[in-house]
């Protein structure tokens, strides 16, 4: 993104942000409430109008973990929700054929295992706790083996043990070459994953807090 200005109803919330994300890089976006983090993330996905500058996602598929979601009210199993992330990204025709079905099943199982929800695959998504639902959403984002993943507070409501699982799953994705932009108030939870921390203040990028992978021991 270059000189990105974005907002609602013509009123800018993000004001002139320059940020690039390379394959295999994880950038944490931090900042106070109302600083424009979620707006910036949603703008990258075309969910908030660009008022100035430009933003480009050069590669697909994209994985997305929203801050708010509606899937909990839907009668569906956890595996179905995760599969929806993969099938939505790949198109409805990509699932036909025995090989495609097997690949889909394996990708879903792998994503669920990565976030520690393998044993809940057949549970109703509405039966999970809030933290488990967050993990299911991360699995949904990873199931399409995306080139880019954007996550909005993925560790909110997740207990300590499962934060480590999430961090491990994201680290594996980053190591596969996935670019990750994560909005978080909890950088230490993603220690060992995040390469750079950038802070947003009143819609503008503050000077970079770190240019190197945040070492686990420092972050903690």
């Amino acid at each position, binding site marked *: 993104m270059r000189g990105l200005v974005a907002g609602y109803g013509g009123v800018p919330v993000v004001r002139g942000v320059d940020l690039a994300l390379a394959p295999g890089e994880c950038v944490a976006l931090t900042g106070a409430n109302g600083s424009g983090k979620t707006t910036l993330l949603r703008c990258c996905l075309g969910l908030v109008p660009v008022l100035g500058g430009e933003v480009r996602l050069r590669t697909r598929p994209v994985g997305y973990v929203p801050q708010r979601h509606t899937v909990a009210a839907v009668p569906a199993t956890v595996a*179905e929700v995760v599969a929806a992330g993969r099938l*939505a990204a790949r198109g409805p025709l990509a699932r036909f054929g025995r090989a495609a079905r097997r690949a889909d099943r394996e990708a879903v199982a792998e994503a669920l295992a990565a976030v520690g929800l393998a044993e809940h695959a057949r549970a109703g998504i509405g039966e999970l706790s809030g933290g488990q639902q967050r993990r299911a959403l991360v699995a949904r984002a990873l199931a399409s083996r995306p080139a880019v993943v954007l996550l909005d507070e993925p560790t909110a409501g997740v207990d300590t043990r499962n934060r480590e699982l999430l961090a491990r799953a994201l680290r594996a994705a980053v190591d596969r070459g996935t670019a990750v932009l994560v909005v978080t108030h909890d950088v230490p939870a993603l220690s060992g994953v995040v390469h750079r921390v950038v802070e947003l203040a009143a819609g503008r990028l503050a000077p970079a807090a770190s240019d190197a992978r945040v070492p686990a021991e420092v972050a903690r």
Partner: protein
Amino acid sequence: MSALALLADPPAWQVWTGLEHAFMQRALVAAVLVGLTAPLVGVFVVQRGMALVGDGIGHVALAGVASGLLLGWAPVATALVAACAAALAMEAVRHRRGTGGDVALAVIFYGGIAGGVVLMGYAPPGGPTLESYLFGAVTTTSTADLVSFAVLAGALSLVVLVLRPWLFSVTSDEEHARATGVPVRLVNGLLGVLVAVTVVLSMRTVGLLLISALVVLPVAAAQRVARSSLGVLVLACAGGVLAGGGGVVTSYWTGTPTGGTVVLLSLASLAVVVVTGAVHGRLAGRRPRRADVRPPAAPDPDELPVRTGAGG
């Protein structure tokens, strides 16, 4: 009894169900087609929180029926055009979410039914009545009607089954669908058109005023039983077929209007499911339907259950 006599005398079950008559056979096929397709679309409509959209589109379809009768064209075709136009207009209004969205919908819906009622007044005498479309007249279904219904039902089923991942994605989490590249406006428009096709299919069976019942009630019952999205789809369609077929046969026994009978059967099945679920829940005690077993001591406050989203 000779073979000839067997051919001449219909079996007892056919006499008992009224299916010895050709009009009843056509009615049964029409009702089964509707019972299958209405919940197939209804699953996504209910999931989307638009349970009563079929009612609104049905209002406009009436204007299409009246236009067809006036012009001497097939009412099914003109109703389909009017219903599709209404569905797309409604989606455009919903997408804009501008001020007065509800008012715009009211203009479309009530303009449609008022226009339909007035136009029916000019229709040539001797044709179908307004009531036959408002409350259904499945026993008057002709073979040509059946062919049209079968083609529409087949096309609708094929579209739903092929596009199910996108329909599920858009109706379960629209923002995520948009973010991941699903053509959300196209899918929403398509869902509206699918509802319009369902309305046209159903108008002769249950009538335009009762259409939403067949779209919603089997789905509502299935949602109380099945845990998975696929399970809801299969059970809702099975419930719809039973209600449709059962309603035609029951109305033959009782001499009651078919449309109302079909809907009352759907309501009865929903009531059975609700009562059974309540009794089962009471017998099983207050067993939590949680997927995990939390340690009894020191529960993590972050892991409180939520049902309607909002992560942090």
